[in-house]
């Protein structure tokens, strides 16, 4: 499709600014650009049509099934969007006097409490801007706590081989060395192996539970015991909370620090890859290490922003986090309520198990038995037909299904990770299950159609090698 720059015509503009109503001030020419930036010159209708066409080239949750495992592409209520667009939320300056933002501060305060309750944590910061940012914040809290309390020797963090790539990257940014722990044949952390690598210098273990295979770490209480006896903290990657809301809480399982991707479990939209919100909750003993500031309530029931946190790790971003994002999570929590959140988790798990069961009739699963909100297909059984997981992914597009997450987690060969979420109906699941079945049949009888897929999209398979070699990154 034509770029907006190709649609540019000198002399057009999409916006008329009122005439300058004040006298002009002199300005030294040396400050001014000689050539204007090459921004497109177009007009309103052209811009509308341009983006309308582009929108059609995207798959989205609103358009169709989007079973992207680990990313929790649940429906994003339009109600949340409408309210987040109200002027009294959207057009608030961060440096307004506290008396003029009591509504926002109350929402932040209550949200901190709700998220604490949901995760079993005692204090929450809303500041981090995304999941990985929350991980970094959490690991910095752990680091500062250990250093302040005489555990300077603790320099390493254990991360399972099934973990999301952000986990090791974040721990590294916080100044830790990474120790990988291998998963056992059940797909969970190998306790014996864990015991072996639990040396004195281990600061923390980062876990996702249920893990990225969709399997609940059923030995979690034992893992927590092992960690506690070594003064090692437990970190919870909350990307997968959608499986367990109202059923069990990370805090009760022994976790000390949790981050939540509000753009997953709590339904704030992913927006093509952000903005997200990666709020972090901690147990009481870590409260004084949270990033500053935090919202508190005075004895007179006034909400205020507290910058005075004793051992704070400092600031992790400017102002107070992605307010307009977590406002949407707040609205979602209130609409669903404690009853609805629990129901959402139960149905997410029901949907995943239903699909897994039906699909295991014709596909190989990475692991048997019940799963939580997602499950992983081991696509290597298709090898004998010369078909790869990536080919299946591409063929799914022809059925208006967004491909599941592929080649993650890294420990499953030809992995394909499916997360239907609770907002898909049984009818939809049945259709998708049939579509998958058709594709597996095709793999056996007519593999070419799969290897050349997708056929119905505007663009077919792209040459990534060329893109990386020739680096064309701007007009």
């Amino acid at each position, binding site marked *: 499709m034509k770029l907006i720059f190709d649609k540019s015509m000198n002399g057009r*503009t999409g916006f008329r600014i009122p005439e300058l109503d004040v006298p002009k001030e002199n300005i030294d020419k040396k400050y001014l650009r000689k050539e204007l930036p090459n921004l497109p010159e177009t007009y309103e209708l052209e811009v509308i049509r341009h983006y309308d066409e582009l929108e059609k080239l995207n798959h989205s949750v609103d358009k169709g099934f989007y079973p992207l495992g680990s990313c929790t592409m649940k429906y994003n209520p339009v109600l949340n969007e409408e309210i987040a*667009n109200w*002027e009294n939320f959207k057009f608030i*300056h961060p440096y307004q006097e506290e008396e003029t933002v009591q509504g926002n501060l109350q929402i932040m305060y209550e949200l901190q409490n709700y998220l604490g309750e949901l995760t079993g944590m005692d204090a929450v910061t809303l500041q981090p801007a995304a999941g990985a940012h929350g991980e970094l914040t959490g690991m910095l809290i752990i680091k500062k706590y250990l250093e302040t309390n005489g555990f300077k020797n603790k320099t390493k963090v254990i991360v399972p081989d099934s973990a999301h790539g952000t986990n090791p990257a974040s721990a590294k940014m916080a100044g830790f060395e990474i120790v990988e722990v291998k998963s056992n044949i059940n797909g969970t952390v190998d306790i014996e192996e864990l015991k072996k690598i639990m040396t004195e210098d281990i600061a923390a273990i980062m876990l996702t539970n249920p893990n990225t295979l969709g399997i609940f770490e059923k030995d979690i209480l034992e893992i927590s015991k092992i960690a506690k006896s070594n003064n090692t903290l437990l970190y919870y990657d909350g990307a997968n909370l959608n499986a367990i809301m109202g059923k069990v809480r990370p805090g009760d399982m022994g976790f000390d620090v949790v981050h939540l991707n509000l753009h997953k479990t709590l339904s704030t939209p992913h927006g093509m890859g952000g*903005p997200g919100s990666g709020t972090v909750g901690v147990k009481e003993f870590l409260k004084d290490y949270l990033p500053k500031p935090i919202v508190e309530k005075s004895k007179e029931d006034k909400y205020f922003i507290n910058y005075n946190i004793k051992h704070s790790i400092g600031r992790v971003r400017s102002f107070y986090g992605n307010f307009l994002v977590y406002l949407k999570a707040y609205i979602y929590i209130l609409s669903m309520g404690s009853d609805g959140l629990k129901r959402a988790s139960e149905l997410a798990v029901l949907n995943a198990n239903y699909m897994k069961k039906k699909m295991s009739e014709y596909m190989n699963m990475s692991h048997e038995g019940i799963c939580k909100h997602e499950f992983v297909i081991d696509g290597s059984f298709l090898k004998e037909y010369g078909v790869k997981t990536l080919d299946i992914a591409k063929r799914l597009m022809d059925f208006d299904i967004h491909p599941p997450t592929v080649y993650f987690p890294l420990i499953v060969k030809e992995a394909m990770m499916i997360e239907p979420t609770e907002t898909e109906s049984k009818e939809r699941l049945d259709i998708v299950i049939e579509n998958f079945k058709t594709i597996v049949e095709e793999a056996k009888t007519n593999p070419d159609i799969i290897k050349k897929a997708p056929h119905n999209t505007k663009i077919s398979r792209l040459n990534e090698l060329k893109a990386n070699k020739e680096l064309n990154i*701007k007009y």
Partner: protein
Amino acid sequence: MYPYLPHTDEDINKMLKTIGVNAIDDLYSDVPELLNRDLNIPNSISEINLKRSLREKASLNDNIRDFGCFRGGGIYNHYIPSIVYQIGAKRGFLTAYTPYQAEVSQGTLQIMYEFQTMISELTGLEVSNSSMYDGATSVAEAILMAGRINKKYKTLIANTIHPEYIEVCETYLKPQEFNLEKINYDKKTGKINITDLKNKINDEISSVVIGYPNFYGIIEDIEEIREIIPKNILLIVVSNPIMLGAFQSPGKLGADIVVGEGQPLGNAPGFGGPGFGFFSSKKEFIRNMPGRIIGKTIDDNGKEGFVMILQTREQHIRREKATSNICSNHAHNALLAAVYMSIMGRTGIKEIAMQNYHKSHYLYNKLIKTEKFEPVFEGTFFNEFALKSKISIDKINKKLHEQKYFGPLNLEKITGEKNIALFCATELNTKEEIDFICSFLEGII
């Protein structure tokens, strides 16, 4: 029933039967029973009641659309054309994720490619990524990137960078054992103190960070500073993208990395978030850049299309060896900026920049005439400026609030400086309201 959940009792029963269990709880048999109560969160409520309750909360806020606004300090009150919201609300953008599958994400990918181009045009540098969390984290990541490039771990940062940005840099750099040292400013001009900079430069310095404009609105002489610092030290410039519509681009003046807060480009203040961080550099540094980058290529039929490139820098492949942990960025905010820049065009954004310059100077001159304020700096400024106030700034703001205005930022709360007010004017401040607040302030004692 819940509006977002489709399952009927009949569906549930059929599904449980297929799975071969009796109840949903059987799917949780591997989970320890630790939470034997309901969550202490209110029960679900209807859309009607929810809106009532949120309206009540919203009414406890005052917004800068109903009130005139003379406050900046990192987040600015610019006009957002209606089209920006309308396009931003398109669900095909809002409810899509990271373009992991290029064939069904060409919309996202092309927008990001166009966005990268526009940011590069403004900054005058060859490569841009598709957004960062915010201005502050962009600066921190730029410093880390410089360290990866020249393998040195000491940075000089102007103490006229936004104080919250400096705090964020300190948080990010400490675990990397990266030293941050501040460069003083010249008390007369408000620009960086060149002698102090010269004295602090040595072989260990990885990068120098300056503002353009700085926190006090003052425009630095990038060329002069570039000449002073040796070639192998990287110059990082923190900029305001609106200013770059008319003023010289930092890249052309010798910056190696240009970053900043993108909120002024079509994004609402939102109580400070979300906006987005922009990030550009010279092409030779691209492999050390954090974040997602989109590139153009062709498909099997020779048709042009876009993909994510250089993913081997990123955490999902490189894990702990990645250039950064950033995964989700602020793509949707970058989209709003791209729409804003498309609609403004090169002449529109220039006009906005010039009006911000002229309006803020008009405000400045008028305020000085009230004799309630004295200049602090002589340097040329863009859209905001610091003044020494003879009256309590809190009092001024209280009085102005009664007149439905948000007055200047009291810097005591931000930098600790007493009686210094940071005023800001944009294209949204009319002559009428500037005249009004100035004559109003004249009458205050």
